[in-house]
């Protein structure tokens, strides 16, 4: 029996399993392309067209356009590829943490400090 057979939700966490990987394949492929500078430039010049090129759903496209990180995760985005999207936007992992948790950047940083107490 796989540890993935237990479908009980883990609070605040989307397990990036086969189902999510299938759902988000095109989205993650788009984000993976951001390893290349010319891809980042192409995205920046026309975001919607770039999403169409990769076959994103309308929901995924809107989440990209709106920088909705939770929305992207829910639609199959993997944080490792989304990190490349975040980098393109000039955001680091603490900015992303704040966005996802609804905290200010300072509040999120304090949360990390508190976790280490």
């Amino acid at each position: 029996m796989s540890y993935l057979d237990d479908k009980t939700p883990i609070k605040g966490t989307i397990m990036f399993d086969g189902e999510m990987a299938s759902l988000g394949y095109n989205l993650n492929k788009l984000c993976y392309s951001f390893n290349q500078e010319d891809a980042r430039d192409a995205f920046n010049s026309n975001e919607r067209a770039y999403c169409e090129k990769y076959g994103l759903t309308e929901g995924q496209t809107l989440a990209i356009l709106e920088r909705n990180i939770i929305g992207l995760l829910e639609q199959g985005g993997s944080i490792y590829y989304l990190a490349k999207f975040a980098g393109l936007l000039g955001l680091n992992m603490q900015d992303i943490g704040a966005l996802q948790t609804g905290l200010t950047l300072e509040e999120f940083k304090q949360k990390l400090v508190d976790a280490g107490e």
Partner: protein
Amino acid sequence: MAKIIGAIGSSHIPAVGMAIAKKLQNTPYWKDFFDGYPPIWNWLNEQKPDVAIIFYNDHGLEFFLDKKPTFAIGAAKQYISYDEGWGLATIPPINGDEALSWHICNELVEDEFDITICQELGVDHGLTVPMQLMWPNDDNYGGIRVIPVVINCERHPMPSLKRCFDLGRSIGKAIESYHQDLKIVVLGTGGLSHQLDGQGAGLINKEFDLMCMEKLVSAPEELFKYNLRDITEIAGAQGVELNMWMGMRGALLGDVTEIHSNYTVPISNTGAGTMLLTNE
């Protein structure tokens, strides 16, 4: 015969690479973290290992989801780092040891570890940040040759803690059967507790990290009881990088002694552990 002289556990957080690039090592935020490394530099200087086996995970540089191995191993003359998309500087090429790589691959497959063998392998921060931490300001990394071992930590299903430990065991046995007199160090990189994604982002579990660091020295088998769902709940979605430390520890077949450790929290979004073990 080749001999594994010890092992090093270390974080591989990209922010560390950024801090190195900006020379922030002595600033209040970073000092405690970087202070964990001089004892390791001294040991590396004294011991001068010939080869480092480095367990790391590829965060979407070399491997995409189209073809993503559970276990992969480098068998290249050289390993190159590339742009990861968010501004981390690349580092000079790292030399490999093809002959030892092939020996390990032969033995692993014989031992029923059917690894993906990579004759070209672009390496990301999972490997490059530890190289910068172990051999700072040295474009030749102390002359060391490297064999990268990649474990899937990005997409479930992922191998269990026991399986990664057993992979390390198998690599350890392969090395100890190698004909050449070489000194080998094993690196486990990544972790410890952290979660980057979702409303649960920012999870760090210091108590669990410290327990894992203790068990890794004295009784690593006691960690096998945690499956990766447990690890995700207790140590965050990226806490599964503990698997690289399991591989590292598995490779140590002799009497293991901890001669240095450090734990700094938070570093970026992470509980950052550092550990130096000898193997006799």
